C-alpha cells in the first residue's frame, strides 16, 4: 500500500461534499481558469482570447440575471459596458484616482443609469425595455463619439494595466484579477437567485399571471435585475479597459449587445455556468472557425453561425449547452440500461 491509496479514499468524500457547495465549485473553476495561461505552448494571443472570455463572462453573468431570471431583454447593454470602460479609464488616467475606486464607479454609474431607465421603461408592457435600451445605447454611442474630452472620440482612449497599492499588474496578473472578480460575482449571483428575490424572479418568469398577483413587488424585482445587469456590464467594461488598455466607440456596437443574448441562450438560460459557457462560445467560436479551412477566410462566418445556433438551440435544445454533459450522461445510462450487458453495474459492485 502506498500513500496515495490511503489518502484518496479519505479525500474523495470530502471533495464530493464540498462540490455540493456552489462557492466551492466556482472557486475551483476559477483556479482552473486562472491556471489556463500556464499551460505550456499557450501563446500570448490565446491568453488575450481568454481575457476576452473572462471580461465577457462578467457582462453575460449580469445579463443572465436580466434575461434568464426576470425575462426581460435589453438590446443596448453594450453601451453600459462602454460607460464602465470610459469611466474607469478616465478616473485612473485623467483624475489619477486609485484603480479600485475606478472599478467601483464603473459599476455604480451604469447601475444608477439602469435604475433610472428601468424606473421608466419597466412600467411599460411588452418589449419597451428592449427599445428603450436600444435608444439609450444609440444616444450614448453619440456621446462616445462626440464627448472628445472624455472619450477621445475615434482617436481612442489608451490606458494601462491596473496599479493597486503600489503593485503594478501585468497582463498575466490582470487576467488572474479578472478571474477573481468573475468568481466573486458568480457567488454573488448564486446567492441573489437563491434568496427570496431570485425565487420571486423565477416564479415571475415561469408564470406571468401568477406573478402579476404580486403587483408592485414584481416591478421592484424587475428593476433590481435590470440594475444588477447594468452594474455588471459596467464592471465588465472596467475590466476590458484595463486588460486591453484601449477603447474606442466602434467597439461598443450593437452586435456586442446581441452577443450577450446569444451567450445567455446558447450557454443555457437562467444558469450561472451557462452564462460563462455562452460567453466562451461567443468569444471562442470566431477563433475556432478561423482554423477551419475554407470557413476561416470568410469574414463574419462565425457571426452568421451564432445566429443559426441561437435559433437551433431555442427550437431544439432550449436548456442550452450547460446541459450537454448531464444529457450525455443520461443518454449513456439509458443506453447501457437498454443494452442487456450488466457489466457496468457489476464493475461497481466489484469496487
Amino acid at each position, binding site marked *: 500500500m502506498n500513500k496515495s491509496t490511503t489518502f484518496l479514499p479519505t479525500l474523495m468524500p470530502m471533495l464530493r461534499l464540498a462540490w455540493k457547495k456552489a462557492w466551492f465549485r466556482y472557486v475551483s473553476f476559477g483556479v482552473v481558469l486562472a491556471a489556463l495561461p500556464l499551460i505550456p505552448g499557450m501563446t500570448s494571443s490565446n491568453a488575450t482570447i481568454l481575457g476576452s472570455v473572462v471580461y465577457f463572462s462578467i457582462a453575460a453573468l449580469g445579463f443572465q440575471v436580466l434575461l434568464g431570471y426576470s425575462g426581460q431583454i435589453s438590446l443596448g447593454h453594450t453601451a453600459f459596458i462602454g460607460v464602465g470602460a470610459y469611466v474607469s479609464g478616465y478616473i485612473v488616467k485623467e483624475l489619477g484616482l486609485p484603480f479600485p475606486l475606478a472599478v467601483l464607479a464603473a459599476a455604480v454609474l451604469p447601475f444608477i443609469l439602469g435604475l433610472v431607465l428601468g424606473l421608466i421603461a419597466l412600467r411599460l408592457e411588452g418589449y419597451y425595455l428592449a427599445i428603450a435600451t436600444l435608444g439609450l445605447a*444609440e444616444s450614448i454611442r453619440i456621446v462616445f463619439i462626440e464627448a472628445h474630452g472624455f472619450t477621445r472620440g475615434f482617436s481612442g482612449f489608451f490606458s494601462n494595466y491596473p496599479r493597486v497599492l503600489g503593485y503594478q499588474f501585468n497582463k498575466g496578473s490582470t487576467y488572474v484579477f479578472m478571474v477573481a472578480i468573475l468568481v466573486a460575482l458568480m457567488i454573488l449571483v448564486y446567492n441573489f437567485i437563491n434568496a427570496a428575490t431570485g425565487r420571486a424572479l423565477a416564479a415571475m418568469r415561469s408564470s406571468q399571471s401568477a406573478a402579476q398577483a404580486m403587483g408592485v413587488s414584481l416591478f421592484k424585482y424587475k428593476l433590481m435585475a435590470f440594475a444588477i445587469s447594468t452594474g455588471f456590464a459596467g464592471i465588465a467594461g472596467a475590466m476590458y479597459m484595463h486588460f486591453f488598455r484601449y477603447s474606442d466607440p466602434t467597439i461598443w456596437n450593437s452586435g456586442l449587445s446581441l452577443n450577450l443574448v446569444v451567450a445567455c441562450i446558447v450557454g443555457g438560460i437562467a444558469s450561472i455556468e451557462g452564462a460563462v459557457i455562452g460567453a466562451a462560445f461567443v468569444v471562442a467560436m470566431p477563433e475556432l472557425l478561423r482554423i477551419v479551412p475554407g470557413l476561416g477566410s470568410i469574414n463574419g462566418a462565425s457571426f452568421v453561425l451564432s445566429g443559426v445556433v441561437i435559433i437551433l438551440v431555442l427550437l431544439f435544445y432550449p436548456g442550452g449547452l450547460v446541459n450537454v454533459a448531464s444529457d450525455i450522461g443520461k443518454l449513456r445510462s439509458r443506453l447501457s440500461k437498454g443494452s442487456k450487458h450488466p457489466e457496468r453495474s457489476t464493475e461497481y459492485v466489484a469496487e
Partner: protein
Amino acid sequence: MQIFFQNVIGGIEAGSMYALAALGLVLIYRTAKMSNFAQGTIGMFNAYIAYFVLARTNLPLPAVAILSVIVAFVVGALIELVIMRRASSTIPMGKPIMTLGLIIIFQGLAPMIFGPVPFQFPRFVQKPALDIAGVKMLPNTLVIISVTIILVAILFYVLQNTRLGLAVRVTAANETTARLMGVPTRAVSLGAWSVATALGALSAIMVAPLTSVTVTMMETIHLNSFIAAILGGFSTFHGPVVGAFILGVANNIISYYISSKWVVAILYTCILAFTIFKPQGLFGKAFVKKV
C-alpha cells in the same frame, strides 16, 4: 418660414418610411403577440437583392421594387412557417430572441454575399426638384409620400371594412375568442408576418436612394419605427403611423433649430419622458373590462 416647411416636408418623407415599418411591427405585435426585431435587417437584405437585380437586368425600377416586396412577402411567410410556428414550446421570450438570431444571420450574410462596399440606389423619379413657393421638393419625395399614404389608406380600409380586417382585429384583441368564432388565427399571423415583412422591405427600398445600400442602412429607421410605435401606442393600428410622422418631423425640426449632433439623444429623451406621463402612447387606451 420656407426653411421650416422644407424641414417639415423632409420630416414627412422620413416619417413615411418609419410609418410603413411601424405598421409592420404593430401588425406582428398584435396578431402574433411578439416583437419582430429583425424587420429592419430583413429589409436591408432585400434592398441589396433589389440593387443587384436592378444592376444585372433591364427591369425598370418600379418592377424591381414590386418584385422585392413580393420576395419579402414570401420570406415573411417562411419565417413564420419554418421558425415561429415550431417555437410554441420554447422559453418565454424565445420568439423575439429568435428574431435577434435572424438579425445576426442576415447582418453577417449581407457583406459576405454582397461585399463591404456601399451601393448607390437610384431614385424612383430622377427629375430635378420642384419649387413650390420657395420650398424645394424632389418628385421622388412626392412619390415616397404618396405611395405611403395610399398604402396606409388601403391597409386601414381593409382592416376597418372587410371580413379579413375584422379577422385580424379580433385576433389582435383576443386570440382564443377569435378561434372560438372560427377565425383561423394561425393563418392570420402568417399573413401578418408576410405583410409586415413586405412593408419593411418597401421601407428599405424607399430609404435606399437617400442613404445608400449598406448593412446598417435600416438601423435608424428600424429603431425609429419602434419608437414611433411606442409614441403612438402599440394598442391601435393608426397610433404608430401618426407617431411615425410626428417623429419624422420633430427629428428634422430639432436637428435644424437646436442641434444636429444631439438630435437623437434629445428626441429619445423627450419620448422617454413622455412615456412617464402616457405609458400607453398617444392613442393607446386601456380598456376596463366590465364584469
